């Protein structure tokens, strides 16, 4: 089993784990963590695609690697915006309304 195959398994499992956290965890910050786990799983899949594309003297295809770098920065920006929203919600409404947000989330899913 090569490192790339193994990374493929990790990536797939990370997507599943993150999705589980995103769906089941009521706390917004945990949902953000879940989103980040899915994101890094997806990036790993790009990574094995890159590794399988090793050619021309490069140990990995540079194009998917560059896409992962772009993706990591975008994912960070997304986390920052999401965290700012969560904190603002707490400031404006306090934990009480967030709890009702949870219950409404639950009722809908």
């Amino acid at each position, binding site marked *: 089993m090569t490192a790339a195959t193994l990374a493929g398994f990790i990536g797939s499992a990370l997507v599943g784990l993150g999705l589980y956290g995103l769906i089941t965890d009521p706390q917004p910050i945990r949902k953000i963590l879940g989103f980040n786990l899915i994101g890094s799983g997806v990036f790993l899949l790009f990574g094995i695609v890159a590794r399988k594309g090793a050619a021309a003297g490069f140990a990995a295809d540079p194009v998917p690697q560059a896409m992962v770098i772009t993706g990591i920065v975008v994912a960070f920006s997304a986390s920052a915006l999401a965290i700012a929203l969560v904190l603002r919600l707490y*400031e404006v409404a306090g934990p009480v309304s967030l709890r009702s947000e949870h219950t409404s989330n639950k009722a809908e899913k």
Partner: protein
Amino acid sequence: MNDFFLSAAGIILFTVAVGLVRVLSGPTNADRIMATQLLGTGGITSLLLVASATGVRGVDDVALGLALLAAFAAIAFVDNVAAPDSDTSKGDRTE
């Protein structure tokens, strides 16, 4: 030689993993943040060992970066836990 490097890396990673189990479970958050510090140093070591065994170039910079960032995470943690009254946001909760 490579096998030696890799075995060393493996042993370090193993000790880190064992340590991780112990410290991530707490009881306090200070314990937990120590886990990442442990992982930082252990990770850097095994990283350098693996890199030199597999012939990946440019890993020294990753190691440098990891070392800096592990310290950075620790400071951020202390900043949040050790300064409980630093939260100035309470003021605008009423608006």
